[in-house]
């Protein structure tokens, strides 16, 4: 028991007033009688009666005052939670890649499903269950129902995907489940305390950790190098607590390129170098050794062709031309780069040469290339990309990149305010002062080839400035994607892929399943690969291969997370599969108010009775 607001106990001082009134009333009233001879046999009060005369009215008033004071002070009691019928349960499942970790033929998700089914079987038939999943986002897999058959079917349909679970998705899932009387979370690792909020302390949250120390190997990185020039490198990591043999195979355009067996120490990460590839193409690294998570055993990368590529850099600033040329060579040393001033380009070049890539900085020069990247485009450049709108220039912005943490972005200089067409994929954004978030980098497949846009200015050696690493990374990624053949895309799982399509397209997933999708009004289909591997999109006229890579250092770590801090709520969650229910706080406001009301009613009845018998003078 306790008080919600103990300060209001000061109202109890009113009891002192009542006691004072009572003591005053105890000063026995004097009444005149005609003669004492009529009362000489009337018993006199005893001594004890004089001290503790029982005055029912006083005690009723005292009880009413006490009850009201306790009610105002928020008196409550803690009562054990009573098993009730018709309770609502929320079963929350993590569906990240970690839940696919398999041991002895059973995945973590399978174990979670079995535990959930046991909970449903043990529950009262009137209890309602809802099923919520989370990975990239939170989804309601099953609305609240008490139909066990429906619930079993919904649980059976759950499948983990090859992505890392996002903390925001967990928070969203718990937010959806907040209304339930009991929340059961099935995940392979304890949720962060900040994601739980007050749910963990509300006594209705149960964490079911479905994890075991399975051995897992993952391809961390795959650098194809430069064919016939630089070595290919493969990064491999052992997440297990024991040494692991890694049978690594390398394929180039689905042909064996290399094979090696490595021994990795516990939790060791190695980078294996290989001879330069003989030619460009799709490089596929594969770990053939069986392990817990299969999604991180394959990785695809595109090795650029060994043939020279002709690139054009147009910028009025010589320093920018120099910087962009350096970046291009860093991406692919086979580039033959022509850097020109916009004025001289118009005067001398025309379109006699064919360019694989053209980068146009702060110019509206009309270039002809397989791929075009506009950097800090002026207003006149909007004609180069259909649907692109340039609304002016902001003097500064904050770029939100991968290396930035928290809500602060990377300060960048002058930035064009762009409105991207629908068919372009925004790859980066920035915050403009007073105007909110705006896209600053986008890529799309136009009618004349791939087109990319970078809104911020790269003058003043921005791309080579270590403090503006995000600007460089974004630029390099965009260039890489622009020089990638149009029929090949290599993306991370969970990202959206926009593909042009003139009609219904057939998508073949890595597991062999096929689905047909219809393009939207912009003539595009959107693919979101949730499995690692190759997707094939065929619309009858052309075929596009989308290679989805998965790797996440946290998600792929199959070691059971042990919370070290005893004070952390995570330890309690992890070590106690089903903690005892916290006693419920039961406010006594209504009970106390009823008691006060009853006391006052009883007092009123007594006073009315007394008035009827002795007159109002004695009330």
């Amino acid at each position, binding site marked *: 028991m306790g008080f919600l607001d103990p300060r209001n106990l000061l109202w109890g001082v009113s009891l002192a007033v009542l006691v004072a009134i009572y003591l005053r009333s105890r000063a026995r009233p004097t009444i005149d009688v005609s003669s004492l001879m009529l009362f000489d046999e009337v*018993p006199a009060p005893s001594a004890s009666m004089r001290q503790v005369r029982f005055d029912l009215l006083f005690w009723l008033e005292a009880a009413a005052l006490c009850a009201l004071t306790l009610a105002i002070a928020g008196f409550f009691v803690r009562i054990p939670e009573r098993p009730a019928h018709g309770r609502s349960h929320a079963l929350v499942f993590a569906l990240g890649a970690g839940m696919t970790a398999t041991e002895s033929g059973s995945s973590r998700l399978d174990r979670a499903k079995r535990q959930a089914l046991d909970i449903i079987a043990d529950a009262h038939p009137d209890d309602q269950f809802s099923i919520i999943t989370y990975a990239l986002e939170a989804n309601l897999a099953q609305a609240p129902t008490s139909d066990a058959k429906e619930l079993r079917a919904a649980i059976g349909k759950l499948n983990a995907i090859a992505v890392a679970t996002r903390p925001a998705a967990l928070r969203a899932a718990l937010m959806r489940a907040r209304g339930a009387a009991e929340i059961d979370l099935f995940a392979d690792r304890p949720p962060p305390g900040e994601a739980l909020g007050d749910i963990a302390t509300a006594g209705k949250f149960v964490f079911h950790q479905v994890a075991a120390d399975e051995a897992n190997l993952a391809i961390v990185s795959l650098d194809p190098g430069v064919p016939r020039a630089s070595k290919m490198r493969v990064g491999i990591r052992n997440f297990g607590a024991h040494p692991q043999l890694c049978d690594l195979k390398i394929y180039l355009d689905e042909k064996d390129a290399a094979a090696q067996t490595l021994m990795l120490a516990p939790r060791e990460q190695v980078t294996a170098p290989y001879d330069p590839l003989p030619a460009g193409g799709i490089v596929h690294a594969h770990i053939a050794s069986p392990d817990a998570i299969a999604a991180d055993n394959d990785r695809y990368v595109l090795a650029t062709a060994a043939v020279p590529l002709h690139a054009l850099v147009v910028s009025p600033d010589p320093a920018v031309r120099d910087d962009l040329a350096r970046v291009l060579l860093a991406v692919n040393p086979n580039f033959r780069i022509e850097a020109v001033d916009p004025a001289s380009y118009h005067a001398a070049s025309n379109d006699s040469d064919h360019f694989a890539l053209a980068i146009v900085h702060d110019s509206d020069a009309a270039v002809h290339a397989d791929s075009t990247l506009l950097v800090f485009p002026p207003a006149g450049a909007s004609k180069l990309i259909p649907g692109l709108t340039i609304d002016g220039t902001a003097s500064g912005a904050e770029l939100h990149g991968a290396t930035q943490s928290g809500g602060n972005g990377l300060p960048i200089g002058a930035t064009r305010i762009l409105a991207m067409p629908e068919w372009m994929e925004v790859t980066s954004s920035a915050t403009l002062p007073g105007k909110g978030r705006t896209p600053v980098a986008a890529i799309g497949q136009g009618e004349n080839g791939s087109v990319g846009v970078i809104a911020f200015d790269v003058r003043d050696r921005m791309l080579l400035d270590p403090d503006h690493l995000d600007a460089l990374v974004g630029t390099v990624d965009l260039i890489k994607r622009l020089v990638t053949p149009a029929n090949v895309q290599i993306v991370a799982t969970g990202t959206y892929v926009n593909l042009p399509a003139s009609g219904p397209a057939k998508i073949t997933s890595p597991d062999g399943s096929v689905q047909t999708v219809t393009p939207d009004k912009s003539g595009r289909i959107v693919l979101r690969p949730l499995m690692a591997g190759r997707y094939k999109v065929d619309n009858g006229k052309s075929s596009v291969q989308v290679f989805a890579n998965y790797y996440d250092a946290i998600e792929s770590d199959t070691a059971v997370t042990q919370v070290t801090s005893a004070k952390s709520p995570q330890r309690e969650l992890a070590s106690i599969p089903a903690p005892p229910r916290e006693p419920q706080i039961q406010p006594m406001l209504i009970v106390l108010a009823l008691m006060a009301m009853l006391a006052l009613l009883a007092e009123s009845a007594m006073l009315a009775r007394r008035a009827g018998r002795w007159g109002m003078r004695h009330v």
Partner: protein
Amino acid sequence: MLETRAFEPEYLRKLDRLVLGIKRARSVRQGERRIGRVQGLGIELENFKEYTEGDDLRFLDWNAMARLDQPLIRTFRAERQIEITALVDASASMGMPTSDDKLGLGLAVGASLAYIGMADNDAVRLGAFSVRRGQMCLETTPFHRRRESYLNFKDFAGAVQAGGETRLGAAVDQLLLERRPRGVVVVVSDFLVSAAEAEDALKRLVAANHEVKVVHVMGEIESTGAYPPGLYRIRDAESGEMREAVFGPEAAAVCRRKVEQLVERIRAICAAIGVVYAQAFGASTLDNFMERELPLLGIVR
């Protein structure tokens, strides 16, 4: 106050048919010391007697002497007026409990009896007695004989205030000192005095050849002990003596028993000395008392 009730026309109409029951003497010749008619001047023929020397010749019956040749004197019965005194106890005890209006009831009873007494044109007066500051205070109205003068009692009844002690013996002493002719004395009191004092006072009234009637007056709360329950300090209205008492059902029963004992004691005294006793308990019973109870008790017929 209840005494005003005794002067309301509606109430008085109920009393018109009542007569005060007085044991009147038939004759003084029989040597009886009775109150009542005596031979003398009058208009109603009573008897004849032989003429003797000294008789008034105006009453000589000439017709009878002519027929009988014997002088006969006619004798008449003369109506003799009786003095009726309604003596009301005005001590402090008659004022308690206030809600009972015991004094008002006593004055109403006394005035009502006076009104009834006026039916025979008897001389009636109303008196109140109590001891104030150690002195017996007996206040009476002049005698009134006719009902037209009944309202003269109203001012007196309204002016009487309860206070002082009850000294019934002293009041009787003062009354007898007036040396009035024998008559009727109606004592209206709560008789919250010692039995010896009450008996002594009543005996002396009887010894003075007064026909004594007693009306025992008590309040409703007083006679039932229906005081509000609780712990009280009670104070004697006359002596000021105090004590503590717990009122409740048990105390009420004790009070009722004490009142019964008092009634029996006064009733026994009255019976022993040939005094008519009546009781009027409760102001609300005035009408019932005057119409029903008094006739049954023989006071009014």
